[in-house]
């Protein structure tokens, strides 16, 4: 039995095709958990939101996608 895993990525279709069980949208291919166009506080908040979405997804059964 493996480890429950959540994938933060931008190329969602690739993840779906391969069968990744929990997929959370990253901000961009170039910066999955960040955004250089935001100021430091805004970026930290964005990162926090994405990570919290990912941790929430970890508690799911593994067949849903969070936006």
């Amino acid at each position, binding site marked *: 039995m493996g480890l429950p895993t959540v994938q933060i990525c931008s190329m969602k279709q690739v993840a779906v095709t391969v069968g990744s069980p929990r997929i959370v949208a990253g901000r961009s291919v170039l910066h*999955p*958990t960040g955004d250089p166009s935001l100021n430091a506080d805004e970026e*930290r908040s964005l990162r926090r939101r994405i990570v*919290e979405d990912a*941790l929430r997804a*970890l508690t799911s059964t593994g067949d849903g996608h969070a936006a």
Partner: protein
Amino acid sequence: MASSRGLFFSLTPKSRIRMGHRLAAMGRSLDGSDRDARMESIKPVGPLRPLRVVHYLNQFFGQLGGEDAAGAPPQIKAGPVGPGRPLASRLGGDFEIVATAICGDNTVADDPEAAISRLLELIRPYSPDMLIAGPSFTAGRYGQGCGELCVAVSRELGIPVLTAMNEENSAVAQFRDRVLILRTGPSAAHMTAALDGVAALAKRLASGDQRLIDRPADAGCFPRGLKRTVVHSHNGARRTVDMILDKIAGRPFKTEVSVPTFERVAPAHIGGPIREAIVALVTDGGLIAKGNPERMPNGFTDRMTEVSIAGHDRLDGDFVEVHHGGYDTQIVNADANRLAPIDVLRDLEREGGIGKLHETIFSTAGLGMSLSNARRLGLEIGRRLKDGGVQAVVLTST
């Protein structure tokens, strides 16, 4: 054939001449007197001496002990050991298990090159005609040992090799393209059926059955994914157009190229609340220790690295950088938390949102990674995280 002699005597002279010409064209005589000589020539000729087989077992089936003996060194004993005995009786008198090579699972998994090299040294003096490894069922390290030894023996001794394992064995994906692997049930409870299969396969292999190379799946083995060149009467352009016309007309057609299917893995479930979980961060975005001391490639690789974050509250350019040939890494090199969100995970750890953040990040550069390497690295990372007590994984992909 007595009837052909009777037929001869009932023919008119003209028919006899015609029949004679037809039979002569087939290399046959008119009166059937050639029959006895032909029957003699198709009697099968047995081998001049029994085929010498070396059998490979791990420490458990080799009767050295259980997990406590997993560090056992490579060794060899004359004759069959353990399951080698019922295997020998199924193989019969045309085969002889002249020796059994045994090695501890950890010995071969920790340093396969050294273990296999030593096993080859021990095996050579027995001058085997064939190597049989396992069956290893779902035991991953044992399966790996079987696979590695089969590859090395095939290459160094040039003799046929075969092994047997269950489809859940991680070694199947690793070796099926290079080694003939018989499918078995999942555990030693299925040993009897597995040995029946191994003996039957060994006999076919010894007879040089070409179908084992062409269509291993028909012989109960894992498909090898080998390609053979065949000559077609029509070129590819013509065949493609025929296929399209069939498809449009709703007629059945057979594709020549199948799209790879990916194995469906049932998602693992987290055993308790996330606030108590030990969480690890893994990335395929090419995170490395600053200065790239391990010389990690920036793509097309079969390697991964473990970056320590012990004592760090966030990633910064003092100790990490990003090395990946598949995307512009400028933005994540300016702040690597944009790739691996360690700063936020540390906040959550402090606040009790997660139980603990694992002290290392497993990382590779995913650019152009082959499916088999991805599978192998994924299994390896999973195993090492599990051994480290990790309970959940956040994977970031670029």
